[in-house]
């Protein structure tokens, strides 16, 4: 039975260490999971389901686990980064039910049944999301550590703009806000880039937001 690279490289290593058991719901992986004989869950563990990038995960873990740790350590999706772990840097930004959030400040248990999209889930069958393409074209990063959070945040931001959510620099609350430099800078202030690639990040977002059909 073929085993997904995800399950072998990431997940089994994690379960051997211990606090958690993650099981893909597909029949074939359930069999693999049984064969690997994971340690029994600790008493007090909670069971939950998460839809991450369109895949269903059945998870069981310590209630202290944040969504960020669930994604990185239990599911094995390490594209989402842990920067400050206190909601200040935005590196952990993911989309939860289409809305951008700091995954470090959300208990995974609270997200039971939710749909989460991470940087790994943005490309469509190998074709980059327009926001990803725009970041590449605008050279909107240097070291890249903040980039997954920046891109997820930018996609969430574009949806907020489209819905007319105001920001601190929106002058007229009755008007539809636009992706101006001032608006993008304000709306992206929850994502820190210590390389200070901000000018190109703003340019990438404006380009992608204006280029995306509304």
């Amino acid at each position, binding site marked *: 039975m073929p085993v997904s690279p995800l399950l072998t490289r990431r997940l089994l290593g994690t379960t051997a260490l211990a606090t958690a058991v993650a099981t893909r719901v597909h029949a074939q992986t359930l069999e693999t999971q049984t064969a690997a004989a994971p340690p029994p869950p600790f008493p*007090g563990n909670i069971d939950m389901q998460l839809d991450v990038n369109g895949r269903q995960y059945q998870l069981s873990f310590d209630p*202290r686990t944040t969504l960020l740790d669930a994604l990185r350590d239990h599911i094995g999706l390490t594209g989402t980064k842990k920067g400050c772990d206190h*909601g200040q840097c935005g590196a952990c930004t993911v989309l939860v039910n289409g809305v951008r*959030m700091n995954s470090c400040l*959300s208990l995974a248990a*609270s997200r039971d049944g939710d749909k989460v999209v991470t940087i790994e889930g943005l490309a469509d069958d190998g074709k980059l999301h327009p926001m990803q393409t725009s970041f590449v074209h605008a050279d909107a990063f240097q070291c890249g550590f903040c980039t997954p959070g920046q891109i997820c945040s930018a996609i969430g931001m574009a949806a907020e703009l489209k819905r007319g959510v105001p920001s*601190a620099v929106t002058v007229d609350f009755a008007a539809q806000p636009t992706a101006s430099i001032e608006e993008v800078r304000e709306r*992206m202030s929850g*994502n820190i880039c210590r390389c200070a690639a901000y000018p190109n990040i703003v340019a990438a977002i404006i380009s992608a937001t204006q280029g995306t059909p509304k």
Partner: protein
Amino acid sequence: MKAFTYERATAIDAAVAAGRNPGARFIAGGTNLLDLMKVEVEKPAHLVDISRLPLRGIAETPDGGLAIGALVSNTELAAHPKVRERYPMLARAVVNGASAQLRNQATTGGNLLQRTRCPYFYDVSKPCNKRMPNSGCSALQGVNRMTAVLGGSDACIAAHPSDMAVAMMALDATIETKGGNKDGRRLPVADLYRLPAETPQHETNLEDGELIVSVTLPPPPTGRQTYRKVRDRASYAFALVSVAAILDVDGDRKVRSARLALGGVGTMPWRAHDAENGMAGAEADGKTFATAGAVAVAGAQGRGGNDFKIPLAKRTVARTFADLAAPPSKD
């Protein structure tokens, strides 16, 4: 983070019952509580997750006000057409707080109950009367630039951090609760908060297990309203000083009525009734507005690092009222 047990409440009654367990805390957005749990300032034995309760609605009340469910996110509150149109001060206060990601998670009820960001409250190696009663206040003689100049005591000068609550104070909002000894009640948001005095660990008048379920805004007062925040950087920073102001000027350019609340300067969101009363009937001019600023901070006590907040608050009040008195332009 200390271990805890977790349950998700599916009904308000069940949440209230679960909230009566010893060591239980409600969690909704979690942006503040979880952060404090990570640094072990908060160590709840049991978490009652209320985030799925049906408290996400915003509805008009019969008298023309607005009832806001406690779980309405900060984003949805600021984006709501009725809030933007009729309570622009509130929408502006909300979008001036935190980051967009945090506003998507944080709730209306949670925002009212958020804890101070005084660094000594967060630092478990330092004395702090709020975190550990009778251990002392490190801020009095320490780094106190961000602390309060109004409402403090020798036990605590921690500033209340909320922007939203400042607008709620100016708008005379009322909260509705479930649980507690009376099994639910209504109280003005002004009565939610307590001054630190000798017991800074008690920040609100809520009882153990009492749950905020909604916040009601009365019909908007007449006049123009806004929220101005002064901070160290242009975005995503706590207030040094913030001002929620409403000004109604009559045809003779006299003040018909005014409301004023301040953030960043008080140990609780600070309503300045004396300043408001002094403005009624006065000329809507710079002198009146400067006097209002002075009256608002009468009795303020600086502690060294935060002395600058007193003149800054005066000037911010005067400037904000002056803007409101100017002929309408863009807002």
